[in-house]
């Protein structure tokens, strides 16, 4: 069955650091049909039209976070975005803003990763021995998991940082990704590292430069809602500063099982019976 193929113009902002020329737009004609994603289009260009086009991709299923680009002035994951949804025969593709461009559509995510590391995105507890050599799991109810589960879906694609108006001008701002992950770990009932992380996020260029523009949550391709996480973090910080609310102790390890009952009476296995054919 012949697919209904349209000719779509991809207008891509090119930049080569090894040339001394400023960034410029270059147009390519890409055949697209129902189901063709922007990433498919970029691969078509690289394989058939211009091998020098540079972009990041890996999983092509919106889980690795590599392929964030600006399509028609809105950040998308290229693998996750159908060409059809724009209802246009011309797509303008630019690299994500608010990050340095290494080449063409490839941006430098180092600053974002450094900000992420600075909020200590791991479980912090007093019982270091248990963390180093775990003996049992930590007790956590499903309701406690639901308090932060949404924020664990972050794939670190950088689209929220590209959307944030504060990140546009404030280079030292931690960014919605790092702040949301800070809340993710603070809200985890197994964690006891709130005081340490609060000194990082309540510093200058930290949490309080967020003004709830909400563009990060709007653009997030995984529905992580960093704006919600940041406002909940602000609530926690204010409650801590005012001395309101009780701080919960990190959850303890599950107590050892005292009794093991077999569900079904199963005869004991004896190798001698097997050899004798019984």
């Amino acid at each position: 069955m012949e697919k209904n193929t349209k000719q779509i113009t991809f207008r891509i902002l090119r930049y080569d650091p090894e040339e001394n020329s400023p960034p410029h737009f270059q147009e390519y004609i890409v055949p697209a049909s129902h189901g063709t994603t922007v990433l498919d289009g970029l691969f078509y260009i690289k394989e058939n039209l211009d091998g020098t086009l540079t972009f990041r991709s890996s999983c092509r299923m919106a889980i690795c976070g590599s392929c964030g680009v600006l399509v028609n002035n809105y950040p998308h994951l290229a693998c996750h975005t159908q060409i059809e949804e724009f209802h246009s025969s011309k797509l303008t593709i630019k690299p994500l803003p608010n990050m340095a461009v290494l080449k063409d559509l490839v941006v430098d995510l180092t600053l974002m990763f450094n900000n992420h590391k600075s909020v200590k995105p791991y479980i912090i507890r007093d019982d270091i021995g248990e963390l180093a050599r775990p003996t049992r799991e930590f007790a956590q109810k499903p309701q406690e998991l639901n308090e932060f589960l949404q924020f664990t879906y972050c794939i670190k694609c950088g689209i929220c940082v590209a959307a944030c108006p504060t990140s546009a001008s404030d280079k030292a701002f931690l960014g919605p990704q790092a702040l949301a992950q800070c809340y993710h770990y603070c809200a985890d009932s197994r964690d006891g590292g709130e005081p340490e992380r609060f000194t990082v996020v309540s510093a200058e260029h930290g949490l309080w430069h967020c003004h709830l523009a909400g563009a990060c949550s709007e653009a997030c391709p995984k529905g992580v809602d960093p704006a919600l996480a940041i406002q909940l973090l602000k609530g926690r910080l204010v409650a801590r500063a005012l001395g309101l609310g009780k701080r919960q102790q990190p959850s303890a390890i599950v107590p050892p099982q005292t009794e093991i009952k077999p569900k079904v009476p199963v005869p004991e296995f004896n190798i001698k019976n097997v050899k004798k054919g019984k």
Partner: protein
Amino acid sequence: MRDTYLRIWQLFTGVAVAVLLGIHIVMLHLTRLFGANAADLTSWESMLDRARQGALATVYIALLAFGLYHGLYGLRGIILELSPSHTTIRVINWVFIILGIIVFIGGTYVPIALLSS
């Protein structure tokens, strides 16, 4: 945590300014709806009348204090988001504190002086 305390004050002064400035604006603008003439409200005698009331003087001084804090903190936030250098940030902090204190002193002198006019 210092920034958190500054921000809590911002929220508190925001609410306080909203209430006090609301009173001020309703007093001076919406009274027209009830028949008071504009010229009457800004005449010298009417102004002196209001200036002699202690309650209003308190409202104005409180409004000045809260409004100055709220406005200067907001302006400082906007400037900080433009990524200035560390020295610039320190200079701005001190300039705003000193400016705020000077304007507050200057601004409270007049209502207090006019109380006994």
